[in-house]
């Protein structure tokens, strides 16, 4: 479980995060949503320890990140998996080498054990035959799946995904969303996804935190987001014609 208590983060005179508190539970897929510029990526990078908040605490299973020594922080980070928006695959390595990388860095497994584990996770993301390819030879959806495989290969306790289905077609985006949710259930990990994709919200949003201008404007789930009267949320959710139509149909059904 990750507990966030009143975190503040500024860049120069601009305050990006203005006191956010929430919790992310183990075995659940949590989504952080909001418009571009609402502070989602900064929030995620604070959780990952890439940015240090000026104020507030982030507690990982009872351990406050700010109280840890640099070595303890590195150990904690080795328990995190991250899927970056642009996949961030190492372009000098093959897909197989990318996935094996965390194992080579953090485990004492033999080459055959590592290879077995790589085969297993690549099979899990339906890329068993792509090991020898370079990342540049893979499609956007394949690169995302490789990034997921790399993130889970070392059996992390926490999985973070920054807009995992941006730039993907709707069908592939759903495949990626479902894959993340299945992995979260299967490995019982704490998963946090940054997104502004309403399809993801509907598919996998077991918990949803809505950010607006650096504050938490709303918190709920995919079951409650369509019923909320919170103006900031409704403006965001029903900004497209499709969802306006869905809302009208939903209201008509209930009348």
């Amino acid at each position, binding site marked *: 479980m990750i507990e966030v208590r009143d975190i503040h983060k500024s860049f120069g005179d601009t305050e990006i995060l203005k006191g956010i508190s929430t919790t992310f539970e183990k075995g659940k897929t949590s989504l952080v949503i909001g418009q571009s510029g609402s502070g989602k990526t900064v929030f995620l990078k604070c959780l990952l320890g890439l940015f240090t908040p000026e104020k507030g605490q982030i507690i990982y299973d009872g351990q406050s990140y700010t109280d840890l020594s640099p070595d303890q922080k590195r150990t904690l980070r080795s328990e995190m998996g991250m899927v970056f928006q642009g996949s961030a695959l190492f372009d000098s390595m093959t897909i197989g080498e990318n996935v094996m990388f965390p194992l080579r*860095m953090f485990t004492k497994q033999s080459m055959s054990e590592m290879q077995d584990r790589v085969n297993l996770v690549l099979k899990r993301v339906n890329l068993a035959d792509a090991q020898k390819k370079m990342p540049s030879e893979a499609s956007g959806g394949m690169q995302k799946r490789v990034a997921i495989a790399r993130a889970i290969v070392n059996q992390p306790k926490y999985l973070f995904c920054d807009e995992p289905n941006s730039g993907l077609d709707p069908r592939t985006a759903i495949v990626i969303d479902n894959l993340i949710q299945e992995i979260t259930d299967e490995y019982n990990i704490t998963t946090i996804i940054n997104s502004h994709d309403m399809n993801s919200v509907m598919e996998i949003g077991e918990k949803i935190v809505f950010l607006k201008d650096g504050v938490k404007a709303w918190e709920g789930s995919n079951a409650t987001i369509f019923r909320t009267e919170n103006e900031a949320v409704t403006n965001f959710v029903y900004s497209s014609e499709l969802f306006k139509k869905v809302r009208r149909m939903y209201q008509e059904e209930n009348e």
Partner: protein
Amino acid sequence: MTYLHNIGAYFIMIKDMFRKPTRWSVMKGLIFKEIDDLIIGSMGIVAFISFFVGGVVTIQTALNISNPLIPKYLVGFATRQSVILEFAPTFISIIMAGKVGSYITSSIGTMRVTEQIDALEVMGINAINYLVFPKFVAMMFYPFVISIAMFLGILGGLAACVYGGFTTVEDYVRGVQEDFIPFHMAYAFIKTFVFAFLLATIPSYYGYFMRGGSLEVGKASTTAFVWTSVAIILSNYLLTQMLLS
């Protein structure tokens, strides 16, 4: 203030380069790759430039010696001194600041832009050690490149001398051997090690700490070249003052 900040951050990066080392089994491969990219990959251009600049130095010297009282072997002597003391260590290092320096800055900078460095940091890896240390170790083989540059520079001078008809092979070889001071070689290699350190670390600093997109990668490469060249020229002056005067 920005200069002071950059100098401070540069030295912190140097310190971090030796902290929390990457596993040897991984590091070994990275070092061999960097030796291939930075050292072996530079041999062609260094050989080409050294041979022809050595020839030009010889021609210029020969053409400027019009006094019949000055012995012809002086052409070989002047070429040797120019190549060993300055041309090979300093001039080649400036060229390498462009070739190797821009490669280092752009490769690390691109990793920054595409979040590959963030990925390393999220995994708990000391990204500075992982990225900069192999380049530093690879550049410790740089004196080998300079040795080749010295040899080919003098050889280029010989070729120019003979084919240009400025002096005989015997005179040239005699000049190359005349009044040889072994410490000049030590001086040249001490400089080379210092330049190698600067060539590995200054471009790495500009690549690692860059912000922005692909345009900024290009700007960072240019800035890295400028400051590496400035650092090489300044350290060249200081070392010459300390070691030869």
